[in-house]
């Protein structure tokens, strides 16, 4: 019996005093969360009886309506269209949670959030580009001049050449703006009216592109010499694009709030794009082009001696992050013209190969399957010299691997500078670099040192964190079990004592064990703990432990945890009488379980139909053995 989402949304709206009474609306996996202006207009009795609303309560100033997984989003969409309320994003909630972290961590997390969804595109391109360019460098093969090369190279570098567009779309999604406006900003930054960002230091390219002779990129003089825009694009850039889209999204949201609805559709996007374009090209752009000039000048000085090379090896990945590494080929070309030996390439190679080592270590060590599946191909791409997927998708996100890579790169570069070898061409690093280096043996030593150090440091110092925010992540495959259990790490601690913490096995309203509608439980005969009125139908492990008991009637499970804590999770009261109908046990006696791993699935409708309360009883059965057992309830 499918729920009529529209009708449900309309009835909800009618019983809360209409859209005008809603300050903000958002939803989580199961609940519609509303912030209401005037609570007296809310008809709670009627709300509870709305078809599709399974329950309601108020918490933290929010009116929360329990609607259910897979349904709540549809009701929410209808609710938004019925009421015209501006949708609050989960980002707002996330931002509130993230606001506690230091700013640099927030920034790294943001870059990671932007990059993770686009990884398939750049990992594929990175690998293809590495292979194609390597093939092209093989002497005597003639591949570099073939049509196949031209075709494959075009396919391979598409994602990188137009990276700003992909980044902009993803960033708009992360920052909660319109993704199409985000795309416009991304496209603008690589518009064909601008000089390709890869060529900003290339005098010849500048002269031929603009038809000038002085090698200076012309500017648009908008207000004399006061406000000018340099006509260069942002190919290969990442950070300026994210900044631009961030500005855009802030602006767009502000305008949506303040522009009268009648003219919102044309005023808001128009103003958003125009102001963002102006701010980006006038302010953000020049800052980066200044940085580029400085980095280039600094790099030229640094590489003259081994210590400088060492510093450059450390800083190199940071310049990749800033998108400033694209002008380095100018240095390389200069070196080749001067002495025929490109001593820059071993530094770049050491730095890149160190990121490969760090990324590989993450890939081999991490247990989260999703991270693993990103880290392994990203590391391969980095080994071929294309480090963006590894840096943005993996190393920077976890940060320690990135630092490990910087250290590896520094040591590798130092060794390379002391050995004094170089390359006879430019454009490739990593493994394809063998095709151009003057001394393959020394090159091997440098790669081994850089990659090895980064790998070892990452391996020993980086630990996998469980990500906050409880996104479903896959756990490492448990032995013998066919499917990987989906681990969702619970946030709420319901019981704590000297032995440790016990997390909530299900989401829902937590009450003291004394309030459980059953005498035996309420008296604490089975131990102290809590009851949880569930909002979902999966019981999860409240800590890492071992299954010590599974009821034959499938409705209860015991888990032994740290310091011999024994927790009994009993779904519903008197549900033993249901003889397992409506329950599915996912573990067996003696199984090792991880915090958040699903243990029992249960059907709330069936429990209710059988006439039992569906409260999930969670008790520390040997609470007598511990001191200071405290329970945290929602009251």
């Amino acid at each position, binding site marked *: 019996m499918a729920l009529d989402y529209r009708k449900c949304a309309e009835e909800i709206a009618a019983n809360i005093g209409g859209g005008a009474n809603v300050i903000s609306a958002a939803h989580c996996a199961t609940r519609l969360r509303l912030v209401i202006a005037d609570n007296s207009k809310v008809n709670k009795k009627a709300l509870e009886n709305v078809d599709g609303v399974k329950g309601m309560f108020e918490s933290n100033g929010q009116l929360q309506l329990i609607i259910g997984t897979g349904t709540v989003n549809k009701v929410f969409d209808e609710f938004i269209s019925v009421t015209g309320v501006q949708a609050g994003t989960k980002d707002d909630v996330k931002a509130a949670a993230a606001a506690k972290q230091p700013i640099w961590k927030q920034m790294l997390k943001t870059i990671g959030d932007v990059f993770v969804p686009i990884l398939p595109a750049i990992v594929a391109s990175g690998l293809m580009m590495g292979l194609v360019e390597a093939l092209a460098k093989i002497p005597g093969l003639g591949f570099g001049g073939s049509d196949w090369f031209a075709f494959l190279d075009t396919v391979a570098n598409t994602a990188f050449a137009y990276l700003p567009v992909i980044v902009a779309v993803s960033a708009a999604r992360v920052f909660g703006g319109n993704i199409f406006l985000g795309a416009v900003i991304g496209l603008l930054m690589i518009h064909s009216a601008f000089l390709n960002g890869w060529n900003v230091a290339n005098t010849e390219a500048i002269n031929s592109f603009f038809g000038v002779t002085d090698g200076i990129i012309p500017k648009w003089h908008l207000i004399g010499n006061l406000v000018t825009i340099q006509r260069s694009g942002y190919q290969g850039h990442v950070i300026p694009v994210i900044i631009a889209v961030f500005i855009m999204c802030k602006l767009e949201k502000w305008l949506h709030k303040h522009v009268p609805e009648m003219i919102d559709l044309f005023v808001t996007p128009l103003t958003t794009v125009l102001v963002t374009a102006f701010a980006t090209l006038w302010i953000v752009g020049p800052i980066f082009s200044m940085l580029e000039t400085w980095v280039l000048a600094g790099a030229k000085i640094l590489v003259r001696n081994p210590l400088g090379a060492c510093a450059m090896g450390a800083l190199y990945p940071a310049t990749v992050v800033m998108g400033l590494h694209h002008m380095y080929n100018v240095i390389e070309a200069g070196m080749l013209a001067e002495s025929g030996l490109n001593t820059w390439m071993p530094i770049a190679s050491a730095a890149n190969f160190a990121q490969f080592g760090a990324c590989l270590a993450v890939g081999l060590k991490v247990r989260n399957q999703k991270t693993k599946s990103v880290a392994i191909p990203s590391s391969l791409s980095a080994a071929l010299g294309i480090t963006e997927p590894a840096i943005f998708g993996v190393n920077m996100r976890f940060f320690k691997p990135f630092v490990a890579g910087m250290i590896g790169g520094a040591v590798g570069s130092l060794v390379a500078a002391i050995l004094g070898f170089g390359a006879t061409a430019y454009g490739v690093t990593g493994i394809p670099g063998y095709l151009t280096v003057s001394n393959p043996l020394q090159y091997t030593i440098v790669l081994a040192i850089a990659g090895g150090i980064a790998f070892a440091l990452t391996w020993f110092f980086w630990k996998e964190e469980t990500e906050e925010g409880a996104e479903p992540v896959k756990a490492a495959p448990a032995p013998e079990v066919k499917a990987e259990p989906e681990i969702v790490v619970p946030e709420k601690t319901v019981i704590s004592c000297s032995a440790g913490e016990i997390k909530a096995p299900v989401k829902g309203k937590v009450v003291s064990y004394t309030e459980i509608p*059953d005498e*035996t*439980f309420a008296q604490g*005969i*089975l*131990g102290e703990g809590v009851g949880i009125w569930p909002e979902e139908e999966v019981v999860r492990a409240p800590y890492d432990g071992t299954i*010590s*008991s*599974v*009821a*034959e*009637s499938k409705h*209860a499970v*015991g888990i*032994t945890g740290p310091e011999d804590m*024994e927790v*009994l999770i*009993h779904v519903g009261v008197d549900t*033993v*009488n249901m003889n397992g109908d409506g329950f599915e046990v996912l573990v067996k*006696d003696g199984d090792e379980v991880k915090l958040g791993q699903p243990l029992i699935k249960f059907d709330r409708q069936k429990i209710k139909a059988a006439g039992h309360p569906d409260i999930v009883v969670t008790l520390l*059965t*040997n609470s*007598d053995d511990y001191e200071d057992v405290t329970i945290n309830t929602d009251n």
Partner: protein
Amino acid sequence: MKEFKYTITDPIGIHARPAGVLAKLAKSFEGATVFLTKGETTVKASQLMKLMNLGVKAGDEVTIRVEGGDEEAAAAALETFFKENL
């Protein structure tokens, strides 16, 4: 050592709640350890999880053994408990 046998009549058997009560009771005898045997498995009756794990159901015969302390009194109290509750 004092022991007795009992055949469970309660249809649910020794599940969570009765097990909890039994474990509590078993812990209450000073100096005594209470064991419960079903078939070939013996567990301490004070250990709730182990007790539940036996999966004792109606019709099962269990053996209850008391060791140490006031065995007589403990066994008597336990027997009463079983007759009244299980």
